[in-house]
Every structure is written in structure tokens, then in C-alpha cells.
């Protein structure tokens, strides 16, 4: 009898369960896991892309900076026109324009809205590259008859990046802060200008020629008795065809207590060589040229009040105009200086032309960055600076006072 042991009947089995489990895990890893990883990765990529696009959009939005200059003109001479200067770091695209008259009427190009539809010329949208000023854009909005400027129209443009920029018509007076850099509290040079006193007058000239030198026949209407223009907001349309007079209040604040003598310029000459004048340096515009309109020093009337309708050229021009030195009282360090302002008058030697202040036919209004050039001599006191040049002597003197004026047409 043969007994076959149990071990003899058993087949040998390999331990494959672990292998199968590992295989399943690997399959799961490379199917579900990889798919999941790719899914998450794709989603993360989409999110990162959207986040980067949003950040870039916000950043680009901040870099946009457009300046609008409004004016009047167009085919009928009565439309609100404007130009846009790109002062930002990126090119911009103007998508839409809104014009409001602040009395409830809104003009726009959005069809189906309650605004009054207008046609913008040229057709929107259009781009403005960095540093470039557009050609004149006609808003299609007509200025009503009898418009006095108050309340003003508001022109708003909307860019492709979602920014809005506005400007008024007529443009507002240049902010006082623009002129603060050379205010009388911080004079640049020895002559201080009182920026609170800066007037402009329209000089009516019925006959004669006020130039070289001015003679009778021209009068300053309502001089110092009526309301003059602010020198910071000159209404060109009233001045056109007439002469213009600017009045400044200047004070000699030289700490060395010297007289400063301003020398009148030669009519028709160009500053700053030997002249005292005001220069309107109009900004370049639409390919136009930068130009200046010199105002030559004249002393029409050196009496602060009571000039009335003063004959133009009655007692003028003086050969020069002295800004008297300050007077000192007390002893240092408790010395007190008393300085007296002097009114100085500048007048145009030619009539204000229709295209003023540009040399070509570019229209106003503009915010003009202007300079008052003062030149002459300092005399007496300590003489020229620096020592040890012999004193007393007469020394050349020059100073520029920057300011800004809005020139506009009513």
C-alpha cells in the first residue's frame, strides 16, 4: 500500500496577491492619478492665466492717462470739439464719448439708451499712441445760442481698458497750485510775483497804433474799475481784434537791498534778449507748431487806482521801470524789511489775432504753460554777485516766472 503524503498532492502556489495589489495600485496611479493630476494641472493653468490677465489688465489700467482739451469749432463753428493727448505709458483706445450739459441732457453714441444720439467724427473706436495728440474730434454736440459758459459742458471719454477721463467746456481756470511753484512765498530770483493779482484787459483801440511807442487813440476800457479778466483764464474771443493788457504785481525782495530796473523791450523783438515780456508757450497740438506771443513791457499807468479810461500812451513808455528796494528797519537779527509791490503793465504790440496764441490756425482753448521773462539790471547796494568785483556797479539781471493760463473762447 502506497500512501501518498498530503504534501505530495499539493501544487505549489506563488504568492501573487501582493503583486496583483501592487499592479492595481500602479494602474490606479497611472490612470486615475495621472488623469487627476492632468486635470488639476490644466485647471491650475487656466486659473494662473486668468489671474495673470487680470493683474495685467489692472496694471495697464493704471498706466492709462489721457488729457482732453476741449474747444469750439466744427463745420458750423458751433460744435464742441476736443483733442486727446496720451500722457500715459500705453497706447489707448477710445471706445465711447459722453457729453453732458449738466442740465439733464446727455449726448452719447449708445443706441437704445435715453441719451440724445450724436455722431462722433471720426468714428469710434480709435486709438491714441503714447505721446500723441489726436486730430480734432467733433463731438457732434452743438453749443446753444447764448451759452455763457455756466454751467459748462462735460466731455467724458471711455477707454477700452475701462478708464474714464473728463474735461469741461469751457475749460476751467488753471488750478492755483499750478502756479504755486513760483509764488511770492517762494520766489525764484529777487522779484516776487503776487499770484493773487494777475489781471488781463481788452484794450480798445479806436485809432492809432499803440506800438513803438504807444500813442494816443487807444484806451483801456474800464481800467481797474470794471471786472477784468483773470490772467489765468483769458477769454480769447473778446480779445480778438483788440490789444491785450496784462497787469502784474511785482515786488523786489532782494535781500541785499538793491534796486532792480526792468528794461523795456523793443517792440517786435523776441524774448528774452533784453526784453521784459510774457510769453505764452502754447503746447504743440495735432502736429502744429509751438509758438509764442510776446508782450512787451509798458507802463500805461502806475497809479494803482483811479486810472479809469486812461489814454493809452499818455505818459508812457518810460525808458525803464524801477522796482524799488526794500527798506530795512531795526537792527539785525531783529531787522524788519518792508517791501512795496509795483504794478507792471504788459501790452501786446499787435492785435490779438484769431489764431492766437498759435502761429497757425489751431483753435483755442488751451492750457498754456507760460513764462514771464524779466530782464534788466540791479544797481547800487552790494553790486554784482559774487564779490570781489568792484562795487557799486550795474549788473545784468534776468528772471523767469512760470505760470499757466487757460485760453478759451466763449
Amino acid at each position, binding site marked *: 500500500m502506497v500512501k501518498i503524503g498530503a504534501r505530495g498532492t499539493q501544487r505549489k502556489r506563488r504568492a501573487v*496577491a501582493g503583486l496583483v495589489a501592487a499592479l492595481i495600485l500602479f494602474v490606479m496611479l497611472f490612470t486615475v492619478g495621472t488623469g487627476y493630476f492632468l486635470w488639476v494641472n490644466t485647471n491650475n493653468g487656466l486659473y494662473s492665466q486668468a489671474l495673470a490677465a487680470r493683474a495685467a489688465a489692472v496694471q495697464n489700467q493704471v498706466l492709462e492717462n489721457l488729457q482732453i482739451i476741449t474747444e469750439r469749432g466744427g463745420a458750423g463753428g458751433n460744435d464742441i470739439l476736443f483733442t486727446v493727448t496720451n500722457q500715459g505709458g500705453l497706447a489707448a483706445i477710445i471706445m465711447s464719448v459722453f457729453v*453732458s450739459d449738466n442740465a439733464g441732457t446727455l449726448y452719447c453714441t449708445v443706441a437704445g439708451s435715453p*441719451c440724445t444720439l450724436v455722431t462722433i467724427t471720426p468714428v469710434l473706436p480709435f486709438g491714441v499712441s503714447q505721446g500723441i495728440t489726436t486730430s480734432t474730434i467733433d463731438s457732434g454736440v452743438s453749443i446753444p445760442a447764448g451759452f455763457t459758459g455756466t454751467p459748462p459742458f462735460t466731455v467724458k471719454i471711455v477707454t477700452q481698458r475701462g478708464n474714464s477721463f473728463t474735461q469741461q467746456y469751457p475749460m476751467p481756470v488753471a488750478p492755483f497750485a499750478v502756479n504755486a511753484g513760483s509764488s511770492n512765498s517762494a520766489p525764484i530770483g529777487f522779484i516776487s510775483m503776487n499770484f493773487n493779482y494777475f489781471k488781463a484787459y481788452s484794450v480798445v483801440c479806436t485809432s492809432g497804433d499803440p506800438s513803438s511807442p504807444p500813442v494816443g487813440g487807444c484806451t483801456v476800457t474800464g481800467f481797474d474799475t470794471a471786472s477784468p479778466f483773470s490772467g489765468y483764464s483769458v477769454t480769447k474771443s473778446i480779445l480778438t481784434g483788440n490789444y491785450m493788457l496784462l497787469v502784474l504785481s511785482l515786488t523786489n525782495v532782494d535781500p541785499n537791498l538793491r534796486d532792480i530796473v526792468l528794461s523795456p523791450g523793443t517792440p517786435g523783438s523776441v524774448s528774452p534778449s533784453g526784453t521784459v515780456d510774457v510769453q505764452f508757450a502754447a503746447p504743440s497740438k495735432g502736429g502744429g507748431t509751438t509758438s509764442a506771443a510776446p508782450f512787451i513791457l509798458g507802463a500805461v499807468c502806475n497809479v494803482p487806482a483811479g486810472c479809469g479810461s486812461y489814454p493809452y500812451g499818455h505818459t508812457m513808455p518810460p525808458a525803464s521801470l524801477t522796482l524799488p528796494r526794500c527798506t530795512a528797519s531795526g537792527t539785525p537779527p531783529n531787522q524788519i524789511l518792508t517791501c512795496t509791490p509795483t504794478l507792471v503793465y504788459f501790452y501786446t504790440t499787435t492785435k490779438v489775432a484769431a489764431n492766437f496764441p498759435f502761429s497757425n490756425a489751431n483753435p483755442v482753448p488751451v492750457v498754456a504753460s507760460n513764462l514771464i521773462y524779466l530782464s534788466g539790471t540791479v544797481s547800487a547796494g552790494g553790486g554784482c554777485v559774487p564779490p570781489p568785483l568792484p562795487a557799486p556797479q550795474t549788473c545784468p539781471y534776468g528772471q523767469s516766472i512760470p505760470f499757466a493760463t487757460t485760453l478759451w473762447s466763449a
Partner: protein
Amino acid sequence: MTLVAGGALFGYVNGQAANSENKLGASNAANVNFLNERFVVPQLTFKYTSPMNQITVYLYNNGQLTDSFVEAEVYTVPRSTMDLLYYYCSSTTPQTSTICTLPQAPFTQLIGNRVMDLNNRNTNGCYADANTLESPTLQNFQVPIGGISPITFTLPSLAAGCFSGSFAVGAFYYVQLLGQYGNSVTYFQAM
């Protein structure tokens, strides 16, 4: 045994992954849509003739997808004078506007375009159907990419004790719009 257990595990993991992918995808889509949804209000205008009860909001889409809106709040500062919420409650969940999920009855039952006086939100009758007070309705209002579209809201006539009045010349009015993906823009302008 290993194969059965492995298969079950595989199925479970696969289901969990799909579930996670769905939720992650929805969450990510919401985030991406939120980032791509951008809009601004460049202009407001009012109806200056009597009754002065309309305000038109111009919206410009500077984003990367078509804008839709679920809420528009018209209010003054302080809000005690006027605080009206124009909103849209969807018939599906989740609701598009959070106001639709407030526990106060009967607002949870209202579907469609509504306007509510938020100063008296718990007073019955201080809400109204806004289908005739919105042009177009908030539900149908869309702003295409790069486009400017207007929507006009008319002040409602509500029950006594609720908001009543019209826009006043010289007063400032604020409009806050909530996009469907969560972006919010506030703009104000004097009438």
C-alpha cells in the same frame, strides 16, 4: 480576493476622483470667471421730467466674457433716504442673488426680477415685481465684451410705510452692481 478588493478600490477611487474633479472644476471655473468678469460704470443719467423716477446706468464691459448681473442697488448716502435693491431670483439652485436665499418669507418664494426696499426688508409689501421697472430686465440684461449697454431702473410704487419718492436734482445717487460671478462696481453721480 485581491482582484475583487482591488477592483472595488479602483472604482471607489475613480468615483472619488471624478467627484473631486467636478467640484474642483466648478470651483476653478468660478474663480476664472470671476477674474475674467470686469465691468465699469462710465455714466449715469436721470429722467429730468416729471415724474423724476428713472435712472439709467451705462455699463462698459472691459472683461473677457459677456457680463450678466444679478443685483443692482440704488441708494443714497446715508441709505436711510433710499436703498432699493433690484435683483433676480432664479428658479434653480443655487440662487444667483444672495437675497433670494434669505430666510424671511415671502422673499424666498419669489422667482424672477424683483425690487425690494432694503430699509424695510421685513415689512410685507416693501417689494415689487420689477419686470416693468427695469428696461431691459436684469435677467435679460447683458453687456457684450467691449460693448456699452444701458439699463434703466424705475423707482417702484410700494405699499404705505415703504419707500416712496423720486430723484431730486442736486442729490447724489449711488449704484452698485453685482455681476453673476461676484464682481461688484459702485458708481455715484449727482442728479
